[in-house]
């Protein structure tokens, strides 16, 4: 018979992992490490939704505005995230084009959609596919940082080329929007409490 700690009036400390009896009053401390205990992450769903809405709003300018301006003796051009991928593809580095495409375009969008689906499934008390949803959450948490790839590339190109006389590279407004999307989706993933996926089962049972 498997039961959650919370059902038995127990909870695990998020810092040191010690299982202790759930205190009656809010804000009690872990007996071992004195960390404030909480049964679940406070305001998990509300925070997750708020971060997601902000991320969706910024995802649009991040992909439509230029992320980088290049000017040289041969003229000037501007790059969006997608045109940067196409440049890599055309110049023969199809493997890098694929990596950047995955990290910059697919991963953020997939994270937003998957987290929204997870949050909605918990909100609606859905009880199916719990193990799959738990696995999906772990995947989202682990791939989140990779979206920073394009920001790092822009930072290095800007630093290398801005000082030369023959060419100049400037960061565009999409860099700011895209950086915000990365931070917001990571914050959304971290504010979601995966234990809520399993709580629905117990409430119904």
């Amino acid at each position, binding site marked *: 018979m498997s039961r959650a700690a919370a059902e038995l009036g127990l909870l695990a400390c998020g810092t040191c992992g010690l299982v202790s009896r759930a205190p009656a009053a809010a804000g009690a401390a872990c007996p071992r490490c004195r960390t404030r205990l909480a049964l679940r992450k406070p305001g998990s769903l509300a925070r997750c939704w708020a971060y997601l809405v902000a991320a969706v709003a910024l995802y649009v300018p991040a992909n439509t505005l230029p992320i980088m301006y290049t000017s040289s003796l041969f003229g000037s051009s501007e790059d969006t995230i997608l045109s940067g991928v196409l440049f890599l593809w055309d110049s023969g*580095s199809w493997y890098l084009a694929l990596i950047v495409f995955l990290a910059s375009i697919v991963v953020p969008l997939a994270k937003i959609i998957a987290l929204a689906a997870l949050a909605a499934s918990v909100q609606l008390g859905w009880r199916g596919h719990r193990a799959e949803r738990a696995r999906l959450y772990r995947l989202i948490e682990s791939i989140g940082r990779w979206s920073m790839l394009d920001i790092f590339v822009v930072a290095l190109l800007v630093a290398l*080329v801005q000082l030369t006389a023959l060419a100049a590279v400037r960061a565009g407004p999409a860099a700011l929007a895209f950086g915000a999307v990365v931070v917001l989706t990571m914050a959304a993933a971290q504010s979601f409490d995966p234990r809520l996926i*399993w709580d629905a089962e117990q409430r119904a049972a």
Partner: protein
Amino acid sequence: MNRAQFLACPECDLLQHDAPSPRPRKALCARCGAVLYERGDGGLERTLALTVTALVLLALANAFPILTLELQDERTSATLAGAAAALWSQDMPLVAILVLFMAVLMPLAELAALAYLLLPLRRGIRAAGFAAVFRVVQFASRWGAVEVFVLGALVSLVKLGHVADVEPGIALLCYGALMLVMAAIEASFDPRELWARVAPA
């Protein structure tokens, strides 16, 4: 009831018995498959040694250029701080801070916090503010992105390689090594061992 005999899964809250010693190397949650704990090979001693190594690599990685560009007899180098400064001067202070935050500050915070906890513990001393510093390790390990930065530098290398001569610098090698050492830290560090040494529950 001795509560140290129980574990609650951090991802689904299932209460489970801790295996009696000798415990297995790795335990997965019976319900959701999350890793409950994973015991490192060399214990905390090895984690500390790796942490010191990583701190040295991180210092070197920030003292030398990551990439050097040669275009028509003109050479420019980019350090990480230089990249952040360039973004800052282009009215992108938030992006500059984000780059420093994920590529330098968070790895530094994770490593410094680990060293702060582990060094005194060798002599059985519990460092002041132990739990708060441990939470710094937890937070910083989620936000540090050393491996992503290494890949970003490689992408930049290829992108610029089409129009100019670009060479990887010492710092890029250091960042590559740092990536491997930090992966080794993650594999060897067992928080349960840490807490058991601090205060046997």
